[in-house]
């Protein structure tokens, strides 16, 4: 076991075994952060299609109607809500506010992200 701190051990960040809600919040924050960064690139690439004329763009828009893409969009919505709310939690605790309630704030962030995603899902699929 290489037991010393080292940047290449960053995969250990994502191991939730034996860890507490604070770490789950940390892990989820990183995963949603990475996901949203990837989405941003994807989004910019898609916008780049505009430059290739209306046909290419229309073709792409047709693709976005597929359920798989819609599911991906829902993931993005969930990630945005969670990442934003957890960001607020981190800011508040960094100012010494609600430190003893940080676990409850994490659960609330997850709950609100789930509710928000469910509302969007309803509007997307049933609305």
């Amino acid at each position, binding site marked *: *076991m290489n037991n010393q701190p080292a940047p290449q051990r*960053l995969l250990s960040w994502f191991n939730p075994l034996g860890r507490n809600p604070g770490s789950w919040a*940390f892990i989820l924050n990183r995963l949603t952060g990475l996901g949203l960064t990837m989405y941003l690139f994807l989004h910019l690439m898609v916008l780049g299609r505009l430059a290739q004329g209306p046909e290419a763009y229309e073709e792409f828009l047709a693709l976005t109607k597929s359920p798989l893409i819609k599911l991906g969009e829902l993931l993005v919505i969930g990630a945005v809500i969670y990442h934003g709310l957890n960001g607020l939690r981190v800011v508040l605790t960094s100012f010494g506010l609600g430190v003893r309630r940080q*676990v409850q704030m994490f659960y609330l962030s997850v709950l609100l992200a789930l509710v928000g995603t469910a509302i969007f899902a309803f509007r997307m699929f049933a609305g």
Partner: protein
Amino acid sequence: MPEQWTVTLRIYRQKTNEPSRYDTFTLEVNPDEYILDAIERVWAFHDRSLCFRHACHHSTCGACGMRVNGVEKLTCITTIRSVARPNAVLTIEPLRNFPIISDLVVDMGELYRKMEAVEARAVLPITEAEIEKPPHQWKTEDSQYVRLSDCLECGLCISACPVAATSQPYLGPAPLAAAQDHRLDRRPDLLTLIDSEHGVWRCHSAFECTAVCPSFVDPGRRIMDLRKQTISAKIRHFFGK
């Protein structure tokens, strides 16, 4: 007749320049014994080459920190009952984020050096101890009384911290908690270190330190308070105070 359980200890072994392995030892134990008692029994009756650290056996020296089933524990105060069931397998591993010297013994030198860098106090006037009374209830003469600082320098918080896993220079929870205990208004000379790249802003709020700390230091809360102290100190500094 005390209750008897059979448990198996699966202990991490590693000697210099040898590959690591796990050795298993099955023991009859009283579940109200401590994990450290079981490890000592392995050493006494099964394998004298097993290396582990301990001294006080009552959560004062901070030497017996290990990971039990992946979670940091002070093994001299962790009962077998609190972490196992009859016939359980208990995996015992050294703390993370410190170099292994032998088996369960890690080199804690880096933590001690960082504690020295912030001039961590081993004792403090009772009037400055957070968990006693609010400041206005103390009389001036009470400051002659001192108490031991809560931190045992056991390193459990460093082992549990995700940032400490990837950043060697990060000061880490116990040293930052020790700096918070000084208060930056009393020790403005610590500001440069605390406000540095490897100081108080490096924490990513996983609060694992607070979850594993066996001694009520609550490093997570103290780090957050130290951030407040840092901002206040910088504002004071900005206005030339």
